[in-house]
């Protein structure tokens, strides 16, 4: 590099000025991430617009019990005559809400715990031992135990899932922050009299943002699955409110006579999780600065 401007350095300059638009362009070119993004966008749109076009998920209709898919009931009805489509759409709302709020809470808590642990050895020992303890339990068992202790409520599902997944996020943030912390610029900042707050939150935090975002998408997917599993086991979202998990539970005993009660919520879970995971994998590639060079 020289002090004189060359065409090459001009190009480099323009590129960084439009970092955001460059990211969007690369996102568009990443087929798997695009597919995941589009599918997820459709599920989100269905969840939000559900009340407009789908019927009421709670209306009982005893004369229409266990009706197979028809024009009136595209996904059929369940053993109480409730519309499966309306319930799957309402379930999408619950699942996405649980997933999104859990991802948000774990990101905030994980970032705080992870950054703090990276910077203070005593805090590190305490926080990481606690998270070792939490991670030693299978996620679902821990979630059931917490639900049993707190009572069956949708908000408690979110709290339980946040407790379960925060350690995973904190670990990722901590290891990224430990790398960032060893860079000379952190010592340079200290030599300039920067406060701990300024070093951690203004200077190190942006450097751990990429892994944090990627991890948050995986937490989003994992908490949708875990919520479904909890509800399937009867320890999640309390009935009669629909969720994909307790719809599967309702359909389980009738799987041979009313396949539509399990197949449709199952398909929703599968496509949502697949979409979120594709998106997360894509983001991991796109946010990894070494990825371009690898191609």
């Amino acid at each position, binding site marked *: *590099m*020289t*002090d004189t401007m060359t065409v090459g*350095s001009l190009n*480099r*300059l323009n590129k*960084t*000025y439009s970092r955001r638009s460059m990211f969007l362009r690369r996102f568009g070119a990443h087929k798997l991430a695009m597919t995941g993004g589009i599918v997820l966008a459709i599920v989100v749109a269905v969840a939000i617009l559900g009340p407009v076009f789908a019927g009421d998920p709670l209306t009982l209709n005893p004369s229409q019990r266990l009706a197979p898919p028809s024009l009136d009931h595209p996904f059929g009805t369940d053993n109480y005559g409730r519309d499966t489509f309306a319930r799957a759409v309402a379930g999408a709302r619950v699942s996405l809400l649980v997933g999104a709020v859990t991802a948000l809470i774990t990101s905030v808590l994980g970032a705080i715990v992870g950054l703090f642990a990276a910077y203070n*050895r*005593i805090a590190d020992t305490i926080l990481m031992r606690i998270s070792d303890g939490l991670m030693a339990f299978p996620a679902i068992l821990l979630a059931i135990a917490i639900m049993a202790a707190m009572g069956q409520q949708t908000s408690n599902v979110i709290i339980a899932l946040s407790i379960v997944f925060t350690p995973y996020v904190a670990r990722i943030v901590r290891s990224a922050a430990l790398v960032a912390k060893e*860079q*000379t*610029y952190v*010592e*340079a*900042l*200290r*030599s*300039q*009299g*920067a*406060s701990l707050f*300024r070093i951690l939150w*203004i*200077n190190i935090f*942006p*450097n751990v943002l990429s892994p944090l975002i990627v991890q948050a998408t995986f937490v989003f997917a994992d908490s949708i699955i875990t919520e479904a599993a909890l509800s399937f086991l009867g320890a999640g979202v309390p009935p009669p409110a629909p969720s994909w998990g307790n719809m599967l539970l309702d359909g389980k005993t009738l799987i041979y006579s009313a396949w539509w009660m399990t197949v449709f919520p199952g398909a929703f879970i599968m496509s949502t999780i697949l979409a979120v995971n594709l998106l997360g994998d894509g983001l991991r590639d796109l946010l990894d600065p070494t990825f371009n060079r690898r191609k």
Partner: protein
Amino acid sequence: MTKLLDVIDLRTSFDTEHGTVTAVDGVSFSVAQGEVVGIVGESGCGKSVTAESILQLLDPSSTRYSGQMNFDGEDLLTFGEEAMRRIRGNRIAMIFQDPMSALNPVFTIGDQLTEAVLAHRKIGKRSARSAAVDLLDKTGIPEPERRMRQYPHQLSGGQRQRVMIAMALSCDPELLIADEPTTALDVTTQAQILRLLIELKDEFNAGILFITHDLGVVAEICDRVVVMYLGEVVESTDVHTLFDNPAHPYTRGLMASTPDVGSDPSADLPIIPGSVPTLHNVPSGCRFADRCPFALPECRERTVELEVLSPDHTSRCIRSQELIGNSPVKDGMAR
């Protein structure tokens, strides 16, 4: 000249998994206003640890300091973390060896410089920004306005080091610690940066503690020199005496292995045999004995103290008196 920084018997030790190691062991030196003091020595001699100890930048949970570091009459070692934060970057600034990673990659030069200015002066964001441009301009970087909007990776090593210098100057420091600021740069850029440092020192009348392993650089900019070996000062004197009359075999070894301007680059330079021992097995007696061509049996028998050869010349060697009379190993180095 008044003493700006007076380090007396500084000892810095680390608790490691394999026990305590003392990386800086009883080091004393001083820096006066407007003076450039060099610390030289091979890699691993404790130069950086000395510099970091002055600002107490080392991990507080595993580092212990003792001794005195009088800065403007007050002992920095008695300061708490809060008081030290007001010293750092305010009255004592530091620049680092590796300009590539000394700037945060996610922010523009302008953001980082403005932030540094704001941290020290109670002014608005706009005037901080224009102060930042002025500082950049002062370091002679071309097109400072445009640099402000660039990210660190868009600058060359020399330009980044100028940015670091601008940042260090944002608070008119009384003392500037430069830890191998030119080691990563090519020779021409190195010469420019050294000239810049001297100009700025004269303008601000600051003292500079200049750390390097390059005696050529020492000859160029330092007024006085402290030679370190394995955590100890082995020789300390003014720059002319050092090159004309080096008293310590280690100093002589360093000089012999420094290439001269104009010398045949392919000619084999003598090197000091062996390498710096680790801190876990510090030799008893003279620490340099295993590598010293002048070593005698009694060198290993007792600790060798610093000997005062003349009012401003000390050397840690039992044969200093004999050696100082002899002409330097290489006449080319004498200036």
